């Protein structure tokens, strides 16, 4: 009998606010695959690398606290946001490799009755599907192959870089210069994966407010790259990349001098489509760039 996969779900903030469809589709896919998700309702924002710029120690304490709650449930933490994944994994790496820092953080956590031990692993839902559930098993569950679609994978920086950390987290990191997890997933679901230069590049999300011109250029180039590769739509495991690509097409289009609007799906929505989930289960109406092919 197959062992049931159970994870402590760290939703992050975006899935609870500006990408509700991501959370809906995560639960829909988990149900189809028989994966149990226990939401970490105590978890806070990971700081998204910006709190880290302001107060590094505070961000460590808060991220360590999040991990504590996964530890208290005896589960691997699963994230659904590349940036949450990176910040949480970086915290774990730093605390596990620096006893003095770990002691300082635990001194603070002790004030609220918590202790970071380092016993929980941290993985992204993309890798939970690929590494733990397995692509072969997933293939058997496909009821609606995505064979009519050219799909452009957009990896998002924080799942693929820094590769040393990703290697430590996933055990076998994909190469940031030639990543393959999303491509493999697309093929497993029967779709056609298109290749384009920007698939492993930055979408510009983290500089959106501070450096809007740079951010718009990066978004525009990514969308343009996917379009020129003849993609019908893009797919990403990161809700922040999704937000940038899905909602900022107008600024991005101005920056690159082209209409670059196209549907951008969450990785979970793509999997859900192939598994036979309904559009409403996957929240497909919550897109600014309309998902017009279902």
């Amino acid at each position, binding site marked *: 009998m197959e062992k049931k996969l159970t994870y402590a779900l760290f939703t992050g903030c975006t899935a609870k606010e500006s990408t509700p469809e991501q959370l809906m589709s995560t639960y829909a896919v988990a149900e189809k695959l028989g994966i149990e998700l226990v939401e970490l309702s105590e978890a806070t*924002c990971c700081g998204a690398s910006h709190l880290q710029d*302001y107060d590094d120690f505070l961000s460590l304490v808060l991220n360590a606290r999040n991990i504590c709650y996964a530890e208290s449930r005896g589960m691997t933490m699963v994230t659904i946001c590349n940036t949450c994944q990176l910040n949480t994994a970086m915290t774990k790496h730093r605390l596990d490799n620096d006893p003095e820092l770990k002691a300082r953080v635990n001194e603070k956590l002790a004030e*609220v009755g918590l202790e970071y031990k380092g016993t929980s692993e941290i993985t992204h839902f993309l890798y939970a599907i690929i590494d733990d559930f397995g692509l072969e098993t997933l293939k058997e569950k496909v009821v609606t192959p995505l064979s009519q679609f050219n799909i452009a994978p957009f990896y998002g920086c924080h799942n693929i870089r820094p590769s040393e950390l990703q290697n430590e987290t996933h055990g076998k990191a994909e190469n940031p210069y030639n990543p393959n997890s999303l491509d493999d997933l697309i093929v497993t679901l029967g779709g056609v994966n298109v290749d384009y*230069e920007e698939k492993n590049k930055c979408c510009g999300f983290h500089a959106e407010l501070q450096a809007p011109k740079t951010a718009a250029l990066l978004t525009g180039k990514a969308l343009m790259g996917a379009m020129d590769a003849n993609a019908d739509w893009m797919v990403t495991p990161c809700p922040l990349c999704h937000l940038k690509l899905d909602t*900022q097409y107008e600024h991005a289009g101005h920056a690159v001098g082209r209409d670059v609007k196209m549907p951008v799906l969450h990785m979970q929505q793509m999997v859900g489509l192939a598994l036979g989930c309904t559009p409403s289960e996957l929240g497909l109406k919550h897109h600014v760039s309309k998902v017009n092919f279902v």
Partner: protein
Amino acid sequence: MTTITTQTITFNVFRFNAETDYLPHYKTIEMEVTSEEVVLDILNRIKWDVDGSFSYRRSCRHGICGACAIKVNGKGVLACKERMNDLIELFGTELTLEPLSIKRAVKDMIIDKEDFWKKHEQVKPYLIDEIDEHPESENLVTPKEEAQLLEADYCIQCGLCHYSCPSLENNESYIGPAAFAAAYRFNADVRDKATLDRLDIVNAPDQGVWDCVKCFECQEVCPKEVNPIEKITKLHNQVFENGVAINNVATRHAVGFAHSIKKHGLLDEAELVRYSEGTVPMLMKHGKVGFKMFKVGKVVMPWNMPKSDKLDEVKALIKSSSTVKF
């Protein structure tokens, strides 16, 4: 004993001579490559065996001068350090050899690095102090103080991070990861007295650390494990720790996370934008997109803002663990 293997590789080699060519072209060269070779061996063989006019920089052959940095299939490499076997495993048997920056190409793999050096100079990458010309004793630095440099002084100025940085590629004012690592190196030196001067430079809008897109390309590509993005984060921290943060969109964006987490546990996304930009600029800049998002259910109203469980615990930790104020 290791067995030496051989493979046939197709190289697409960037060719351009700024003195005679209007546009670059790519020359296809097939070559037998052995498992012992590094990229520099291939560059040498192209010049020695195929075309004597092929140009590239090389010097130490030991990964310490940084001269031979190029890109292979978009990946920045030190040619003398990068093993062909690893590249073949990564990209297959068709490899494109290009200079670090096509727009700065002078001749084939050789680029004009003037922008790199100007930016390096911009951050005052040297020790600044009132030097006693007749010291009575050595100026001692403890191992703990030296450790604060965090390997920033390992930089060989190869330019790999600089020419892989997407912020810099899209904004020529941006100072860039290599120069920021140098700025950190001297700010972290206990003997130096110019921290605030350097922070003025790296804190400035458009050129400074706030324009980092946080893509980690600089950490990934660095052949000497300098980890420039770590230094960029440290410079952000120094800006706040030294009380020189300018009250602007960038700094409020960082500080807004702490406010929001204290209030909700989670980030209040809409409020973060309002706090960072101000109400009127937010509406002017993001009103149209915000309305589109609202229409499809992507905006949470303030009264529906989700909160983390055990918020009192979060507030207590923020109170006791905060290390800076803004």
